[in-house]
């Protein structure tokens, strides 16, 4: 089990949003968390990765920070730095080698933009740069909040490919998305 969640209760601003969340995720499995606006998907993922203390319940498997990746609604790109500089920074902070950056940029088709400051990128290009982090630093579990937002059709396909390859390599992923994801092997759906 990469992650196992038991009886999780998530609350925001004094309102209980989710109760009794239980699930476990093994290698080569993915979970698509779906739910309407404000149902608590982002709050759930933040609780899983430890940014937010859950009201109750336990999350096992994510104690060490280098097991998982978290990509939220925000891209965590410094607007004044270029795409490459941002990625390099994240590799260094996470003690990872910088060799995979090139490959990550290739895969996300950001080669032409790699030396441009992130403030000069379009919204979708910025999202791609954020996703490139997943490939630049390898981690077994991905926690992704709306990874498809802002991506064009080609970008969505690219992401699905990335996800497939990740699962095939023994990774796992928890993904929220309002768009339907194509059925993949090992993908389950959690409706909030």
């Amino acid at each position: 089990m990469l992650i196992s969640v038991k009886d999780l209760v998530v609350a925001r601003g004094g309102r209980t949003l989710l109760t009794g969340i239980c699930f476990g995720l093994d290698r080569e499995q993915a979970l698509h968390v779906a739910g309407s606006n404000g149902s608590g998907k982002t709050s759930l993922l933040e609780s899983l990765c430890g940014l937010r203390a859950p009201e109750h319940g336990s999350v096992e498997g994510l104690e060490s920070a280098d097991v998982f990746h978290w990509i939220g609604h925000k891209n965590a790109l410094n607007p004044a730095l270029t795409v490459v500089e941002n990625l390099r920074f994240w590799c260094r902070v996470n003690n990872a080698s910088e060799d995979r950056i090139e490959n990550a940029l290739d895969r996300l088709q950001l080669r032409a933009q790699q030396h441009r400051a992130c403030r000069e990128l379009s919204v979708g290009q910025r999202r791609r740069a954020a996703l490139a982090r997943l490939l630049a630093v390898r981690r077994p579990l991905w926690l992704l909040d709306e990874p498809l937002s802002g991506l064009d059709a080609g970008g969505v396909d690219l992401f699905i490919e990335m996800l497939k390859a990740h699962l095939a390599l023994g990774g796992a992923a928890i993904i929220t998305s309002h768009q339907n994801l194509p059925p993949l092997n090992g993908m389950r759906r959690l409706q909030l």
Partner: protein
Amino acid sequence: MSALKAVFMRELQLAARSRADWAQPVFFYILVSLLFPLGVAPNSTALPLFVPAILWMGALLAALLGLERVFRSDFEDGTLEQLFLAPVPVSFLVLGKLLAAWLVLGLPLALLSPLLGLLLGLSMHAAGVVMLGLLLGTLSLFFLGGFSSALLVGLPRAGVLLPVLVLPLVSPILIFGAGAARAAMSGSSAEAPLYFLAAIAVFCICLIPLATATALRNAFE
């Protein structure tokens, strides 16, 4: 360690983005210190008495203005949450960030201060003491400035408490710093206040990153 270095280098990189960047703190300091005499009667002979106070105020302002956004912009673009999930203690990263901020903004001020002091009529010896004092003092001031900006990000409601938290720490720095300069001006020994400043600086460097990291953590919960 490499993470600390990464954060440190990124701050420097950001500072180096525009060509005029290195010059900004310098002009800033010159302007603040030269504007004071404007408010005073022309040719007042009492001016040198105030020079230490002027030089220290400039440093305080630089710390507050320059650090206003250290954590806010990272918070807003999502960098901060990623830093919390990095496999390194956040207080480490905070240390790197604040040291870099000091290097970019604080150190030039300290190095410039003896020159300004001489311009404003300090003696050579007193100017040296001002510089030493500011080297130590700006370090503490920058850490305190970073802490207050973290408070504003993490606990916006605590903003009103800011004075209560920061004031007791800022005033000894200013009192000792200006005191050292005055001692040097009057020819007596400035060692004691300088040691005090060094002690405060060490204290700030060791403890403030921890407090800052805790304050930042609150931004998420």
